[in-house]
């Protein structure tokens, strides 16, 4: 499974949000998308997911243009995991995961016991099958994220798109979710994840796509492209990267003497 984005540009009225973005990911890649607020990370994801269709360039899945695919077929390749899922009405965790069955069920049918089993399997895969009958809205943010990941898996897609999954989680849950996602990519899922925390990209993901002013500022293995210069360009503040035996650590550069 290869996902290739070729010369993708997208404009909102006369404001060009994405300019000539090109990159590709292979099966099992874990790609972090970095960039300042409003740089077009979510827009990029929406183009890939097909919710924005008036872009130029192409999104290719195994060489096939995604615009030529029926939404149901596209959903069998790509699943979307939103930042937060706030339903108006409360559902049980299992019911939330079961919604993924909409992709293959005909409009007039209801999920079968087979669908229920598959949903339970995906919950199991993420180690949260004990939550199946709980009220989704009463779970912690981290558990909710994992449930949404389980839903994406039971959708049978192998490319997972996560829009800032960690932004509303506490520290422990951030790491727990990322660890799980990391393991999924090792199992062969392709993960595209946007984050505001470059440390997460550095620690967990093998590849990084850095967007700046709508264009690709850097793309490649995180080890090679995560430099102090790039961080400074992206975020506009001085940043140091310390090399340790546990990987690079990103810290703000503070002028300590001037403060004391």
């Amino acid at each position, binding site marked *: 499974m290869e996902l290739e984005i070729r010369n993708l540009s997208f404009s909102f009225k006369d404001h060009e949000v994405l300019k000539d973005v090109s990159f590709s990911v292979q099966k099992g890649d874990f790609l972090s998308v970095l960039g300042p607020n409003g740089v077009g990370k979510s827009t990029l994801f929406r183009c890939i997911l097909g919710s924005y269709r008036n872009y130029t360039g192409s999104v290719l899945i195994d060489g096939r243009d995604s615009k030529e695919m029926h939404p149901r077929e596209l959903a069998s390749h790509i699943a979307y995991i*939103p930042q937060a899922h706030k339903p108006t009405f409360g559902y049980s965790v299992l019911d939330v995961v079961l919604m993924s069955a909409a992709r293959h069920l005909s409009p007039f049918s209801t999920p079968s016991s087979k669908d229920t*089993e598959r949903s339970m399997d995906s919950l199991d895969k993420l180690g949260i099958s004990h939550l199946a009958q709980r009220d989704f809205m009463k779970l912690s943010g981290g558990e909710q994220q994992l449930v949404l990941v389980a839903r994406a898996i039971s959708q049978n897609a192998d490319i997972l798109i996560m829009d800032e999954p960690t932004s509303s989680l506490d520290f422990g849950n951030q790491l727990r979710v990322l660890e799980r996602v990391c393991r999924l990519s090792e199992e062969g899922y392709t993960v595209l994840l946007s984050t505001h925390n470059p440390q997460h990209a550095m620690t967990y993901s093998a590849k990084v796509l850095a967007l700046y002013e709508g264009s690709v500022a850097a793309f490649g293995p995180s080890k090679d492209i995560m430099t102090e210069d790039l961080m400074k360009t992206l975020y506009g503040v001085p940043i140091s990267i310390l090399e340790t035996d546990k990987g690079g650590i990103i810290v703000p550069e503070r002028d300590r003497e001037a403060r004391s």
Partner: protein
Amino acid sequence: METKSATQNGKRERIAILILSVLLFVLFIFSFVIGRYDVPVTDVIKILLSRVFPITQNWTSNMETAVINIRLPRILLACLVGCCLATAGTSYQSVFQNPMAAPDILGASSGACFGAALAILFDFSKMGITLTAFFFSILTVTLVYIIGARIRGNQIVNILLAGIMVSSLFSAGTSYIKLVADPSNQLPAITYWLMGSLSGTRLKDVGFAVIPMLIGLAPIFLIRWRMNLLTINEEEAKSMGVNTKLLRFAVIVCATFITAASVACSGMIGWVGLVIPHLSRKIVGNNCRYLIPASMIFGAFFLLLVDNISRNLLATEIPIGILTAFIGAPFFIYLMMQKENH
């Protein structure tokens, strides 16, 4: 353990729906017994069965008239209207992701009222009044949908806003008709119609109403599980391959159809479409797979119960619309207060 919880998924809800059905059946039979003219329950059952099986008649023909010609049509219509209003309320709530949505949210009721008032003003027959009310009800919602779709921005909010505007327009129209109507006979007829009533229902009326009702109810029942996907973020639903626009349109059309049919043949019966969906949510949860059948049965049960009160409590009949408001409004307040304690 996991497989067990998987197979048991929905068991509790199914049992709840079964219990509701039994309750409805008991109330259905009991409703034939009560009334000005006494008919013992054994005779009720025999009379009803005699329509299907050959049973030798040992009951008076007065009993048969009361059961078949007077009570049966009214009981059936109460069940149908209750079922439709509750189902429409539940559906609108899902489509608009709004727990406060009720069947009249898109102006179906105010349109029907305007149509009925107009028909009474022109001295139409009873059937004419029903047809005009139905026509105006559909017309109003169509207008609302067209206006809502033409405004830029969030489609859901736009349709709701258009609903409020167009509703008030038609309400003003109804007020004007009341002003010019003949105060000796037309005005009371309009007022009485607006209060909602099931009295004087004939079997013919039921046969006429049941067609549009089934046309609307059947698709809602069939796509009920998929309706769940309208209650979540549209982008999420689309990413799962769901055509949310088409699905939403289909549910709105069906819900409007059954609302229009109900209001057209029974007048304004408020609160059923708001209270019953919420009660059903309490019993079976929010999964439309079970919520829709539960609403259907519970709606029928509730309106039949209220109609029994309406025709038996006092010597003169109390319009059912007044009763549902008397029961519904305080009950809804109670429900809301309970939620806060949660």
